[in-house]
């Protein structure tokens, strides 16, 4: 499987703190890669580094073979990298439809130039994630689970090649989690490679092909899902050392 995204020895420091330390891994084309780790492991920082909100202190990131670490966020978006935010921030003054339309207007390939066409595409994405009937509502009126779907729809409207999902299942009940898993599988089927940051191990287990585990900024495991989850170092990171 060829790599569509390659993170190479990336380090990010904030004043005294090393948030991400010499992390390297690849995301294969059509793959769903899970990124897990206890709180504060550096997962969201990693996503921000890939999407362009932050730039690495050291190291490089390759998208489809070309280096993107020096590119500003909007350029990476136009190349085909989409992301959802852990703390969902829709454009509050806009309708749900228009929120998604922004993605269609500006996304991958510099998007649509016509508002009407963009809105059509937006509606299609809303239907895809199951929010079609909320199109005319103001975005701030949506409830929690629906906001997550809106985040996905916004990112999808950009027609990304890679989707970075930051804790898209946080706060959902079991039924809602299964629904999101279904949507993510649909997304992968449509040809998009996904990097999923998650805390809900059950969901990650059924969704990901491979896992990368971060702990205090270091990568401590990288491999097929089942193997990683039985790795003792990983278990220690989450649960602490076993007393024998």
């Amino acid at each position, binding site marked *: 499987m060829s790599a569509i995204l390659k993170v190479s020895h990336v380090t990010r420091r904030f004043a005294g703190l090393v948030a991400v330390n010499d992390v390297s891994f690849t995301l294969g084309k059509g793959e769903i890669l899970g990124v897990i780790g206890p709180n504060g492991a550096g997962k969201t920082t990693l996503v921000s580094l890939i999407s362009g909100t932050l730039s690495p202190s050291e190291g490089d990131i390759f998208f489809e073979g070309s280096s993107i670490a020096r590119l500003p966020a*909007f350029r990476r*978006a136009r190349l085909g990298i989409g992301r959802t935010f852990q703390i969902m*921030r829709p454009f509050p003054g806009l309708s749900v439809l228009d929120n998604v339309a922004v993605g269609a207007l*500006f996304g991958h390939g510099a998007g649509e130039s016509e508002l009407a066409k963009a809105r059509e595409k937006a509606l299609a994405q809303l239907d895809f994630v199951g929010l079609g009937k909320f199109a005319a509502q103001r975005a701030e009126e949506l409830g929690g689970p629906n906001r997550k779907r809106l985040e996905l729809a916004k990112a999808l409207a950009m027609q990304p090649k890679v989707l970075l999902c930051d804790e898209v299942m946080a706060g959902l009940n079991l039924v809602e989690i299964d629904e999101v898993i279904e949507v993510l599988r649909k997304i992968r089927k449509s040809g998009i490679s996904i990097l999923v940051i998650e805390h809900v191990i059950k969901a990650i287990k059924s969704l990901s092909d491979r896992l990368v585990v971060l702990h205090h900024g270091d990568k401590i495991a990288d491999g097929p899902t089942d193997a990683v989850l039985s790795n003792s170092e990983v278990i220690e990171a989450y649960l602490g050392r076993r007393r024998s």
Partner: protein
Amino acid sequence: MSAFRIGLAIVAVAALAALPLYGSDVVIQFGINTLLLAVLAQGWNIIGGYAGYASFGNSAFYGLGSYGVGIAMVQWGLPFPVGMIFGVVLAVVFAFCLGIPVLRLRGHYFAIATLALAQVMSAIVSNVSLAGQNIGLVLPPLNNDRLFYELSLGLLVIATLTIFWLTRSRFGFGLIAIRENEEGAAVMGVNTTLYKVLAFALSGVFTALAGGIHAYWITFLDPESAFDISLNVKMIIMAVFGGPGTVFGPVVGAFALSAVSEVLSSEATNVAGLFFGVVVVAAVVLMPRGIADVIRRFRTSGWHYFIENLRAHRI
């Protein structure tokens, strides 16, 4: 935008255009002032209302437009339209050169930076001999208030149409996205730096044009009046109270506040200024979201609207 509203707008413009035919000289002068203020409010609307960057320094553009016309006509003997273009060029150059560093700031830092820039421009110009330094310039007189009136009205119409186009264009959507969530806009592909600077420049263009018209109309120009700081806050107040980020809001705000100001001005000039301040204070407390919001919510909340505002914002 419903057909009704469009029809209403056309009728309003026609009525305004016909004003010089039946209005007295005083009314026409009031009209010119008000129309120009409305242009300023609309100009501010682009950067402050749509992009969400509250500039407190648009008076810099106003001054540049004024001096553009002044220098072109007085020092170089060029006709008025050329002067206007010169003023616009100055404004655009200013917006690009200084906009880029300053637009990296957020919130009140941006506001203060623009305020400081306006002060700097004013101070620099008062030292430039080409601009007549502190004494200023006297332009060739043109005694045709009606012409200035129609020019001002035309400019306002163009400004409003531009805002209307904004609400339907990719550029406008980008600006709104920047306003609502700039980081989110960037990761969705909006070139935030470019768009902000373009908005700033566009805002500057209209402001400069208004300044140019004003300069020629008054035929006199000095740094203090051209870079008048109080204009900054006036245009903001008019835009904010009329309804920022809307097409007609700033126009309504400008007309309303001018009318109030003018009505009281007939009593005594001092008291009028005083009352303007009191009105501003009262309006900020009671209707912080502007007239547009009052109209929208009054139907449901009635007088409670004002009490709700108070309760929401006090400690």
